[in-house]
Structure formats: C-alpha cells, structure tokens
C-alpha cells in the first residue's frame, strides 16, 4: 500500500477493545490482541467462545459493536471484505460448485481483472504449491475432502493476501489426514511467509501448529502466548483444564496436599503411581489413595486415583515407561508421587 503506516503499528492484525453483541448475546467481550507479521497464530477455545466471531470481524463479515480492527496499520473496522488484504479458508471450504478447480482458484484474480495469461500462470503456480497439478479441470464434487481443502487454500493464497484467515481448516478431515495437513500447513506458512491466523477448538492442533496462540473463553481472552508457555504456565484454571488435562486442586484439599491455600495444577504426565509400600525418593512429594480406574489407550496408560485427601487425580504414563508400576489393579491402595517443581500455582 502506498499509504504510510502510522508509527503505532505493532503488527499485521490488531484488535483494539473489540466487543460484538448479537442481540442480547455478548459474543466477544472487549478483546485487545496483537498479531505480528509472519506469525502462525491460533485462536483457540470451545465452541461459542467468540474465536470465530473475531476471525469474521477481521475478515470483514461482521462489524464490531465497539472497538477497532487494524490491518497493517490501517483502520479497517468498517471496510468491506472485498477491500481488505485478507483471504479466508472457510470451514466448509465454500468452493463454488459450478466452477472448475482452476476457475475457483482464479476467481479472486478474475474479479480483480488480472489479465488472462497472468491469471493462468499464477493459478498453475499455486496449484503446484498445494500439490494439485493436473486437477485444474475437475469440479469440486469430483475431489476428496483433503483435495477440496487444498483448493480452498490455493484459492485464498493466489491473491497473495497480507493475512490468511483459516476457520477450523482441518475440522472436516479425518484424523490421519488432519495430522498430515497440520504439518503441511505449517510448512506452507514457512514457505509463503505471510501471517496465518487460524481458528480451532482442537488444543492439539493449536499446540502443534502455532507460533503463538490466544485462548478464548466466554467471549474473553484467557491467555496469549507461545504453546509451551501456555501449557507449562497456564494463567487461569480454565486454560489449565482446556489445554491438555490438569488435576486442579483448591481450598481445603490444597491445604492438606500442598500445605497452602490457592489453586494448583498438576499435569497427569508429571505424576507417578506407586504401590503403597514402595519407597518415595527424598526429592518427591506424595499422597495416598486408591486406584479407581485403569484405561489402556494404546500409547498411554490412563489411571484414576481417588486420594484420601479428597481430590480425584488422573495420571498418564507412556505404556512403555518403566518408572510407574503398571501391574497395579483397580481397587489397590496406591501412592502418588510428584516433583514439587511440577506443581504449578494458578492463583
């Protein structure tokens, strides 16, 4: 753009005190968020948490009730979708069923009156990027789910947007394909070097793919940070529980177990289950309880322990690990141990 960006610009996308109401429903509640140029950024949260509404406000499909949306230093709060430097990959792909793959991908260039020869050239190139060479003349109905997903990606990328918005891009794919596409998307983002902003309710997806993520709950931001930061140091009990699994303890049981009031989180993979008679090493804390459930889940063994102090803890072990005692039966008296450094205080 020829217009000089104001000095206040911090990144590609900025939401500034954005609130969105649908009638009496408060979908997004005063959110401020900065996304840097070239970031792979995830908006993560349960359904109805406001993450998709945020994405739609950045794309221009919704207008904030109050607050501002900035794109590359330009206030686009009331700019129409077709005048924004964003392109979207829709959850249901929204491919035009009456057009071929090439026509779908070339659509954005066609409506912007890009010359036919250049159009063909760019469509061909981007179809190569998403590994769909040779599919140009197919109709969307003749493609598999994964191929449609790539067409949707190519259709957005060919316009060379400043920011690519992805709304649950992998939601409609089966698990195997989804894991493949996660890596592929990540690679693609590194190759094209533009900002990717994607919405997901799948915490694994967010952890795997993003450079940074924002966790949404009830229209508000719970925490923004890198995946490791959010996983290891959740800011709120909600984040601790939503990202991975956490054993959260507060009140009287916290006093009994950890000798302090407050809210504590212990990750299931940081706990060990021992027989009651086993010796506890000096650098570990422990608590006694009863094994109430054992679930074998292939790569992991998931065990549930009801502690005498009250709380019920989940413990996961790699099935190949040797440190824990896998032979313990349901109903056995057990001892849970953990390193004090694994204990994380939420507040």
């Amino acid at each position, binding site marked *: 753009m020829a217009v000089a960006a104001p000095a206040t610009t911090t990144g590609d996308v900025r939401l500034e005190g954005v609130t969105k109401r649908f009638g009496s429903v408060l979908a997004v509640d005063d959110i401020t968020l900065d996304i840097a140029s070239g970031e792979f950024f995830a908006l993560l949260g349960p359904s109805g948490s406001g993450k998709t509404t945020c994405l739609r406000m950045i*794309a*221009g*499909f919704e207008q904030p009730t109050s607050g501002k949306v900035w794109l590359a230093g330009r206030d686009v709060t009331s700019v*129409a*979708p*077709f005048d924004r430097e*964003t*392109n*979207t990959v*829709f959850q*249901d*792909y*929204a*491919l*035009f*069923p*009456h057009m071929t793959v090439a026509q779908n991908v070339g*659509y*954005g260039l*066609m*409506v*912007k009156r890009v010359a036919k020869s250049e159009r063909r050239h760019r469509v061909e190139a981007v179809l190569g990027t998403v590994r769909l060479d040779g599919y140009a003349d197919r109709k*969307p*109905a003749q*493609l598999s789910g994964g191929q*449609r997903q790539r067409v949707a990606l190519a*259709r*957005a990328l060919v*316009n060379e947007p400043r920011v690519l918005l992805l709304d649950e891009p992998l939601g409609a794919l089966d698990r195997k394909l989804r894991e493949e596409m996660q890596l592929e998307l990540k690679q693609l983002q590194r190759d094209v070097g533009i900002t990717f902003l994607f919405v997901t309710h799948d915490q694994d997806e967010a952890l795997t793919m993003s450079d940074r993520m924002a966790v949404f709950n009830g229209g508000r931001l719970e925490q923004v940070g890198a995946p490791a930061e959010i996983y290891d140091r959740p800011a709120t009990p909600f984040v601790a529980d939503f990202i991975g699994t956490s054993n959260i303890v507060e009140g009287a049981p916290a006093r009994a177990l950890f000798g302090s009031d407050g809210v504590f989180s212990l990750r299931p993979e940081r706990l060990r289950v021992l027989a009651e008679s086993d010796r506890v090493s000096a650098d570990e804390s422990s608590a006694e309880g009863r094994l109430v459930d054992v679930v074998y889940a292939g790569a992991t063994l998931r065990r549930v322990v009801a502690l005498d102090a009250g709380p019920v803890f989940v413990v996961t072990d790699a099935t190949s690990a040797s440190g824990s005692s896998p032979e313990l039966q349901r109903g056995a008296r057990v001892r849970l141990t953990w390193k004090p450094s694994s204990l994380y205080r939420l507040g």
Partner: protein
Amino acid sequence: MSGAVAGSARGRRALGVVTAAVLVVVYVPLAVVVINSFNRSRTFGWPPAGFTLSWWARAWHSTGARSALATSVEAGLGATAVALLLGTMAAFAVSRYRFFGRETVSFLVLLPIALPGIVTGIALNNAFRVLGLPFGLLTIIIGHATFCIVLVYNNALARLRRLGGSLEEASMDLGAGVLQTFRFVTFPQLRSALLAGGLLDFALSFDEIIVTTFTAAPGVQTLPLWIFGNLFRPNQAPVVNVVAAALIVLSVVPVWLAQRVAGDAGGGRF
C-alpha cells in the same frame, strides 16, 4: 413370515392396478382428444372414421385461434417475467435479511394461488375499474402474475436456504463486489431454480381461464377463453379439438423441462 411376504406382494399388485386405473382415467381422455383431431368424422364418432389433417390445416388458418395463441404467449411471458423479478427479490429479502413481518411474507405470497380464482378475478376486476386501468393484455399479465410469483418465490427461497451465505461470503472475501457476486456466484446457483419456477409459471398462465375471464377485454382473448367461446359452436368443434391437442403438447414441454431442470443441476455445496 411367508404370509407377510405374500401379503405384501398381493398389496403391491393391488397398488399397481389402482395406479394403472388412475393413469387410464387421467390420460385416456387426453389421448382421445389428440386422436379426434385427426378424425375425419365431424361428429367424432368412435371408432374414428378415417385419418385427416384438414382440421389441423383449418386451425392453422383460423385467425381467431392464432391471435388468441399470440395473446396467451404474450400473457404467459409477461406474467412469468413479472413473477421472476418479484419472486426472486422477495426470496432474497426473506432469506438474507431480518425485518418486521418477514414471517408473513411467505403466507402473503402463497395466498393468491390458494384463493379461489373467481375471488381473485372479481377483486382484480374491481381494483382495475377503481384505478381506471383499461382492460387488456396488461391487466391479464397482472392477474396471472399474482398467483405466479409463489412458484418462483418458493423455488428460489428453497435454493437460497440450501446455499446459505458462505459462497457469497467467499466471493466477497476474494474481492468481488455485490454485483459481481450476484453475477458469478449467486445467479449461477439460482439459475436452475428460477428456470423451473418460470417454466411452471408459463404453463400455469397459459391455461388459466377464471382470473383471465375477469381481467381480459372483449377484443383480447387468450387461447383458453377462445376455446371456451368456440366449444359449443358446432362448426368450430373440430378446430377446438385441434387447438386442445396442440395445447396438450405445448403444456407438456415446459413441465417436463421444469422437472428435468429442477431434478439435476441442483448443485450441492462444497
């Protein structure tokens, strides 16, 4: 078990017989009309006395029938055009916007086709008199359009609801303005629904007689009115028969086309 199977087989046979009987009752009279249009006997004795094309030749040269046919085609095209325009616009409004009275629109659009034609006819006749609108082709078109709109409206509304808004959002996201989006995305998705509605409308308008009676002028006759007027004039009976036979063929074509168009080219979403 075997009794149940035998029972269902017997049931199916009975159903087949009833179906055949109904089809015979509906279609044999139509076939008789077509056959009689080639019947040499002026009194249509059965079996036909012999084959002749002279009634067809006479009908072809009948100026009354030809001008009535022209009026019917004009009225059909006019009413269809009005219905396409208003029906599509109403369907868009109802499917894409929220406004006061939205739930009532479907009812209001549907009502004219449910009302007895004679009520619509009298009401329109009165209205045109009050407004001082001269009776003629225009009044016929308006009269037909009142009950034609609903077919376009229903077809378009169903299609728009099934499409949802995401294709249009995708189009705008890719840089297309409102008009480009309609031209390249919405209309192609809507086309077959509109064609089906339009063809049915034409067929409906083409054979309408009751509302037409109240909205036509003495000099402007549609084909059904002409037939009705000439049916009991013995000299004209064979010609009426030919016109009726031609009408059967003419009516089948749009309905058949409408069904084909609505059937395929539905266009799912991806």
